[in-house]
């Protein structure tokens, strides 16, 4: 009986979180950012301020999600995120992975789905923060390279979209190409969520039977020196193959975390 109650609570609280995210995005995009734009400072200072604000808002949001017991999480090694010219790459099992990674990285830039630039709840935020659209490809690559050269830390999901449950990880080569061209540091973040919350093709109200537990683990930096000695097309292909294999090995064959989870 109690299980049933907590289940319905989580459905309800998940809906509340979605609403909060949308309303929060609207308020930031429509009210707060325009006010920030009026403050003095050059465009770069302003953008940094906005990114800082987005980070703090998302940090609050993940605390709320934990507070209302929709999820629990651990984030290991976040002190190694946010270095200049750092490309941060993560696998993408669930809808809100980016929320956590941005929340735990000091004022990062981020490559996000093109649709977020159209969605009224998110477009104000992604524009003001100077995030990069994942389409068209050439503009994404130029934008990402420019951001890294300017010393930003940049968050990318090489899968390009959420993992298809039960299928092997598939990394698109754009991320590897950007890494070879422009990353000072390449740092992996392994994302595990058990049971899976909001994977691809599942509507939001179908929450899993137990409360999902997230583990974010920042891995060791990946040495790019060997790849930089090769021609770019070959280097990015080799790096992409290596990264796909590396993440698959760290996450287990299915990309799903299998240890006993907490609830």
């Amino acid at each position, binding site marked *: 009986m109690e299980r049933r109650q907590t289940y319905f609570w989580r459905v309800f609280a998940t809906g509340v979180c979605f609403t909060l995210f949308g309303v929060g995005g609207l308020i930031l995009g429509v009210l707060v950012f325009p006010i920030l734009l009026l403050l003095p400072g050059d465009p770069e200072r302003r953008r940094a301020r906005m990114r800082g604000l987005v980070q703090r808002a998302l940090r609050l949001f993940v605390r709320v999600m934990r507070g209302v017991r929709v999820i629990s999480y651990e984030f290991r090694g976040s002190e190694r995120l946010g270095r200049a010219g750092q490309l941060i790459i993560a696998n993408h099992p669930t809808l809100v992975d980016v929320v956590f990674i941005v929340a735990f990285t000091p004022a990062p830039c981020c490559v996000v789905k093109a649709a977020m630039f159209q969605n009224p709840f998110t477009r104000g935020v992604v524009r003001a923060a100077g995030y990069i659209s994942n389409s*068209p*490809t*050439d503009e994404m*690559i*130029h934008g990402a390279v420019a951001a890294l050269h300017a010393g930003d830390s940049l968050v990318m999901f090489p899968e390009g979209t959420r993992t298809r449950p039960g299928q092997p990880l598939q990394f698109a*080569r*754009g991320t590897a*190409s950007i890494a070879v061209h422009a990353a000072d540091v390449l740092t992996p973040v392994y994302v595990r969520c058990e049971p899976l919350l909001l994977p691809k093709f599942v509507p939001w109200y179908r929450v899993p039977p137990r409360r999902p537990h997230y583990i974010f683990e920042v891995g060791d930096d990946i040495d790019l020196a060997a790849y930089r000695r090769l*021609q*770019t*097309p*070959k280097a*990015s292909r080799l790096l992409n193959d290596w990264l796909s294999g590396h993440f698959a090995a760290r996450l287990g064959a299915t990309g799903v975390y299998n240890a006993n989870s907490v609830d």
Partner: protein
Amino acid sequence: MQTKDEILEQIKASLGELFELDPARITLAARLNEDLEIDSIDAVDLLDGLRRQTGKKVSAEDFRSVRTVGDLVEAIYKLVQA
């Protein structure tokens, strides 16, 4: 002014070097994606290279319809003519 043949030779040389392709495979009819395994990510690098070499404004739009090496020759020919 470069002729189309010269452009083809240059393409053969640079694709051959960048992608370790046998120049014999780089014919006018060869399809970049299916036959030579050159994808949209490579295309970004190739266009950047072309910008540096020609010093011209190269718009990705002009190259969207390029499918074969022959299309590429035509597109570059138009570019250097302009």
